[in-house]
């Protein structure tokens, strides 16, 4: 395996881990806190937003890494996936 590809995997894995643990910690903290304070449910909500944002973030990170590897084909593919996701978001808001 090329060194650059290994680096891409490493950065992507870090992004996934960061997203997973941040969302998990926020949702869990919010659930526990909501029995004492009103801010609990807001933290839970924010945690779900972090979870929903992680897939977009991982595509963005992959696109940047493919750019570093000078692999134009996969930069374009990532941008295409990102475009479909943004379209879903925009259409979802209007729905």
């Amino acid at each position, binding site marked *: 395996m090329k060194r650059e590809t290994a680096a891409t995997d490493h950065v992507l894995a870090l992004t996934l881990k960061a997203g997973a643990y941040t969302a*998990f910690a926020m949702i869990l903290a919010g659930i526990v806190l909501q029995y004492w304070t009103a801010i609990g449910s807001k933290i839970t909500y924010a945690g779900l937003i972090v979870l*929903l944002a992680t897939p977009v973030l991982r595509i963005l990170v992959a696109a940047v890494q493919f750019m570093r590897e000078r692999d134009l084909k996969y930069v374009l593919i990532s941008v295409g996936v990102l475009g479909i996701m943004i379209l879903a978001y925009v259409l979802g808001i209007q729905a």
Partner: protein
Amino acid sequence: MSLGAALLLVTIGFFAGGFGALAGVGGGIIITPLLAIYYGLPIHAAIGISLISVIATSTATSALYVERHITDVRLGMTLELATTAGALIAALVAHQVNRRTLAVMFACFLLYSAISMAKKAWGSRNQQVEPGIPDYTPHNYPLGLSAAFVAGGFSGLLGIGGGPIKVPVMFLFMKVPLRVATATSNFMIGVTAATSAYVYWGRGDIQVSIAAPLVAGVFAGSLLSARLSSKVRSAYVLLLLILVTTWLAAVMIYKLATGGF
């Protein structure tokens, strides 16, 4: 929501996420019918919440496979073009689809999953763990992309990951090693589910009070199972899931026959 009810949801999420990740099917096939049958949620709401758990499973488990270079990120990204397109279209039309029709499709998908898991369990009865990953080049992209589009459509319509569709296609027709196919599918389902989840979220189909405790459980279960996966005999996990999915399919069919949904 009472503490007891929240804890029950955490527990359900834990087992659905944990066993789902161990068997490589995602917790969606268990969560949607459970919420629709036992929590009395409208099926669209159950599907929306299930999509969130699919994102959680994918995010939690794929970090490990990506880190170990088992996931083929380039293959996954390419197929995601098709899965997200399918998921977007399906999520947009899902509300026009009759509830009962969705329930029928879901029951069929449960039975299909049970059969494909039975095949997998039978095939793996004497199998040794593959030592490394052999060299490969993905073949037959047109077929792979078409299957990915269909899998994405099912994901957006039924709130599942679509692994039982993508993994066999990648393995049998694209000539990708099974472990790579499974890991790549795991990576893709989060992106696919997120695409349709945005539409469900925008429509207000996702109830945070139910989704949050469930997702917390799914996270814990998936994180744990990703670490245990090499130590657990997958045949037993598969057997358990075959029983659960068959049971849920039977209950759904009974409910449909008696005029439910």
